[in-house]
């Protein structure tokens, strides 16, 4: 799956450049995440590559099929979960999975088989005949994901599938996504949850304002930052000989995060802080730290 210089411009009351030349290549059998703040162009990209939206310029291919000229072929191989998808109250999870599988061209027997598999995999089998109106938010979301799973497609495109889910439900979705990848499926995921991107992705692209600003495995992305370690200190920084205006420092109320290139320097600051009676700890930088640096830098 790849896009070459995709551009999307919306011309309404004002002109908005949602994508400014996005080139991405997604390998077969990997979970690729588009990570970006709201308005970064993630959904626009996903809607173009899933044949719902036409780009203003550029090319996109799925399994070698041209998204613009061979949309029918592309559609045979993909299943999507749109962003902020709502469920119809009178539908049951079974109806979502079964009817959509039939609509994809499966026989009734096949559709039943795949609907059952999907609902069991997503742990909704016991609730399959309850109407969506009576399900919790997480269960509704899982019903939609199950309907995509039941398609047995080769490629899944999920637009922020875990937004609004609690931590437990989110982790169960992550487990399912990784299981799908182990079964040889390709997944394109969009999210703005850093932890999600770091844990589930094989590779990811950080997008901001319609552009890809970094691409690679989560560990590779983390190495893009000059500073490799962070020290969190609670209390006054002046006793550590660090000024508040230092550009390595970020403030969160009474807590400070200091970013450092060298682990020994980080440990030294922690030791000094502890000696002075302050709370302090150090850890390697997170994907979120790198994301904020990259996207923040982009904003500037």
């Amino acid at each position, binding site marked *: 799956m790849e896009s070459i210089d995709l551009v999307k411009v919306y011309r*309404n009351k004002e002109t908005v450049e949602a994508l400014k030349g996005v080139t991405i290549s997604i390998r077969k059998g990997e979970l690729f995440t588009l990570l970006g703040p709201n308005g970064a162009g993630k959904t626009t990209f996903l*809607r173009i590559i*899933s*044949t*719902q*939206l*036409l780009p203003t310029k550029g090319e996109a291919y799925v399994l070698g099929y041209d998204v613009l000229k061979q*949309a*029918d072929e592309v*559609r*045979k191989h*993909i*299943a*999507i979960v*749109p*962003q*902020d*998808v*709502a*469920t*119809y109250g*009178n*539908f*049951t999870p079974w*109806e979502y999975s079964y*009817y*959509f599988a*039939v*609509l*994809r*061209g499966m026989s009734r027997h096949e559709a039943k088989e795949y609907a059952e598999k999907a609902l069991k995999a997503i742990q909704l089998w016991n609730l399959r005949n309850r*109407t969506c109106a009576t399900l919790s938010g997480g269960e509704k979301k899982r019903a939609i994901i199950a*309907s995509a799973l039941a*398609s047995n497609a080769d490629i899944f*495109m999920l637009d922020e599938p875990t937004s609004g889910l609690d931590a437990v439900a989110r982790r169960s979705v992550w487990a399912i996504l990784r299981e799908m990848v182990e079964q040889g499926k390709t997944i394109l995921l969009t999210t703005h949850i850093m932890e999600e991107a770091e844990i589930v992705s094989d590779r990811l692209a950080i997008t901001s304002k319609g552009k890809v600003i970094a691409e690679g495995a989560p560990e590779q992305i983390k190495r893009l930052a000059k500073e490799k370690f962070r020290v969190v200190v609670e209390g006054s920084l002046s006793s550590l000989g660090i000024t508040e205006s230092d550009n390595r420092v970020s403030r969160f109320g009474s807590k400070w995060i200091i970013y450092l290139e060298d682990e020994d320097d980080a440990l030294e600051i922690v030791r000094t802080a502890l000696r002075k009676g302050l709370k302090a700890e150090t850890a390697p930088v997170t994907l979120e730290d790198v994301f904020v640096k990259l996207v923040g830098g982009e904003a500037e």
Partner: protein
Amino acid sequence: MNVKIVRDILVIAMIKSIPDLKRSPLMLILAGLISALPLFFMMMFGAQLSNGLIGAMVATIGFIGLMAAIQDVAGDRYLKIREIIVAMPVHPISYAMGIAFAPLIFSSPGLLIFVALAIWLGVLTFSSLLWSIIILISCWATLSSLGFLISTYLQRASIYTLNALSNLLGIALVFLPPVYYPEEMLSSFSWIALLFPTSNAAGLIRIYSGLLDTSIVMILARWLILLATMIACTIATLVKAKWRES
């Protein structure tokens, strides 16, 4: 039309009707009741029930054609069902026709009651019934296409705007023109009946039922207008309706 397209029409019609029929059967009563309501008033004020029955048949078809197409497409957009289906190997014709057929399943009991009453009261004979079915199908196809076209063009309109618009159009096309009442009541303005697919259809059924006397030229003119409107709306939907957003 290949087998997959026909199969998908039926599946979409089932998706859009069976769960509601199973879990909200009151909607079935409501679908028939809206069209039947004017009949009660007509009876109370001593108007001819035969004209009202023909109006109720056309109104049932008109409402479900126009309103259901707009409201269903708007609802699907809100629930993102349309997005999911667009990204599936489903032909846009299957979606449009599935959406149009679903309310037909809903309204068929009400429609059958009106037809049965019309036959029982002698308003419809066997031959006029056959003509009526053809006329009703043409009217349904016209208004469904129109509804589908409107909803796919108003991509950014909210579900509330689309619902209000469909209700307004329903009133404008079903209650205002001579659908429930004979067009002779409009005297010199009776030609207005030809302009609306609903009142034109009702007029044609009245002609075949012997309730309206007119020349063969006028009958041909009415058919021409009805079929031309249907073909124009259907072609416009096929050509202009936006399946994939640009």
